[in-house]
């Protein structure tokens, strides 16, 4: 295809991506270098029956004018990145010196919004992904050994948790595990603790969110693995059987190697999707015990006093995280591409 023709074909799509993905990233970067204007203060003299006193008041009119004239705020350089709400270098150093053990340090560091969110986001990403892989493979192997007529309905039901709107999926689960819901009541009976509430304990909240993550993503792994199982070649399986391999060995040495590229694909998709975990925290109303990077951005942006600077800074750090996460894949693809001899 000629460059010219290519250009015209790709133009609408490229324009949409440049205008609404690339430029917003630039806009986020610029915003991250600014902070909101401080309120304009004015000193007035109040004279009453007992003499005059000087008083400092907030000049609302001037503050509003200033904010309207320069909505970006004032330039702050990289100070947003270093402040308490983000990297918090000074605070971290102070905590390190003051704390007497690693556990103590961790406990203190978890009061810093950015590190707290990063800790949950990474835990969620790296716990959910392997569970999704294992559970998806187990279901796929199970369904594959079912009689054919049961497979369609099983796939139908399995697609529900994945397809459903994340916010809706998390609400549906949340209403069940709520202390007044059916699972909440069940857990209270099992543990014999009528005051048990998943929301009250940070650990249980984390577990609940991870369970939601696995529940909603396992179908994806299941479907991909199931499709892969349909294409496992017969011959190596038969050869393995003749050599006396039992079922487990056949799965271990023939089926799993065949599914390996699929596992890599699922891992990549899951890392990308789990890293932006956001809706479950809104749905489960878990912000007191768990926040994610995306949730922090959302939280800065909403309300009347939106902190655009803080939101933009967290966004930049999140994008940096995505690039780090994807770097191995990008490098690998780049090598493959070069090897193909372009």
């Amino acid at each position, binding site marked *: *295809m000629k460059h010219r023709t*290519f250009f015209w*074909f*790709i133009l609408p*799509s490229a324009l*949409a*991506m440049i*205008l*609404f*993905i690339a430029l917003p*990233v630039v*806009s986020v970067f610029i*915003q991250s270098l600014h902070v909101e204007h401080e309120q304009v203060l004015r000193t007035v003299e109040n004279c009453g029956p007992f003499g005059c006193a000087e008083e400092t008041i907030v000049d609302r009119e001037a503050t509003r004018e200033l904010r309207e004239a320069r*909505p*970006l705020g004032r330039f702050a350089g990289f100070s947003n990145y270093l402040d308490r709400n983000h990297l918090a270098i000074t605070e971290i150093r102070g905590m390190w010196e003051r704390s007497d053990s690693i556990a103590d340090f961790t406990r203190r560091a978890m009061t810093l919004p950015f590190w707290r969110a990063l800790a949950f986001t990474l835990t969620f990403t790296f716990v959910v992904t392997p569970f999704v892989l294992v559970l998806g493979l187990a*279901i796929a*192997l*199970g369904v594959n*050994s*079912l009689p054919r007529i049961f497979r369609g309905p099983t796939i*139908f*039901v*399995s*697609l529900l948790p994945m397809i*459903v*709107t994340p*916010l*809706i999926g998390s609400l*549906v*689960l949340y*209403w069940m595990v*709520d202390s*007044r*819901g*059916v699972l909440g*009541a069940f857990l209270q009976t099992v543990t014999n603790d009528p005051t048990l509430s998943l929301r009250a304990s940070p650990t249980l909240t984390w577990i609940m969110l991870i369970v939601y993550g696995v*529940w909603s993503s396992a179908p994806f792994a299941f*479907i*991909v693995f199931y*499709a*892969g199982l349909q294409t496992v070649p*017969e011959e190596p*399986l*038969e050869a393995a059987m003749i050599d006396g391999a039992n079922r487990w060995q056949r799965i271990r040495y023939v089926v799993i190697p065949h599914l390996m*590229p*699929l596992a890599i694909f*699922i891992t990549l*998709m899951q890392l*990308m999707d789990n890293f932006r975990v956001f809706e479950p925290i809104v749905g489960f*109303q878990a912000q007191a015990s768990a926040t994610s*990077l*995306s949730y922090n951005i*959302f939280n800065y*942006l909403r309300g009347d006093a939106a902190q*655009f600077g803080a*939101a*933009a800074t*967290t966004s930049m750090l999140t994008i940096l995280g*995505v690039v780090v996460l994807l770097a191995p894949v990008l490098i690998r693809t*780049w090598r493959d591409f070069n090897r193909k001899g372009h």
Partner: protein
Amino acid sequence: MAATQRRSPLLVTVSTALVLLWVVIASFPFLWTLWGSFKVQADFFSLSDWRNALRGTFTMAQTGSAFTGQGYHGAWVQEEFWRAAMNTLIVVVCVVVISLTFGTLGGYALARSGFRYTFWLLMIALVFRAMPHITLVSGYLLPFFQWNVWGHLPTAIIVLVAINQPFTLWMLHSFFLNIPKDLDESAMVDGCTRFQAFRHVIVPVMWPGVITTGLFSFLLAYNDFAVTAMLLSQQNQTMVPKIASFLGSTQVEGNVMFAVAAVVSATAPLFVLILFFQRQIVSGLTAGAVKG
């Protein structure tokens, strides 16, 4: 592979039990919520005994029958959920149509051009695909306020189209790779321009891929919370942010049932979608995987 092997009964039992357990885990939450949406709050969120939700004790006492449509009435009529449903319909239809139009053109170009920049474009699209949507939203808000376009449906539509592009491009690119090159090239030998070849030769055969991609564009637009919650004004809200806003007003007894009813209402179209397009969804999920 299945037919040739003999299995031990133990293995069959274990794997069937596992699948059954999974089916229950996957479907029970939805069935339970559907059931509960016809009860009153005192039953569905029972303080005393969870079995109230099954027996409908309070529903009987308050409404005189075991099932009630109060939640649905409250959500659709009183809280005007129909308005949100209309907005969702507009947003979803526009997003699907526009992103497929852009995506087929771009995906076709990427599949037919062998130059090095196509690789880079696809890699950039992959990075864009991985970016959390809310990070982009924080970049839109200030400019959109400035230009006075915040809050309108077209703004949300074009933003969702753009966010959708990386995925659409990847999907259609790999789909067009499977359509033989000879098809459009022979048309060009016969004197068609590239666009005519695309229009008359490729378009008639591309529908299976376009439908599959369209399903996923639909899901992205329908399921979105981050963009629609931040970029739409109160009266232009779509369903998902509307449901989220119900949650804020649950202090009043019974209002949480509005959210339950709205959740069930918003799940219904997805249910129908899987019913009719299960095959396409499955093939779409695996399409990316097979390509690696």
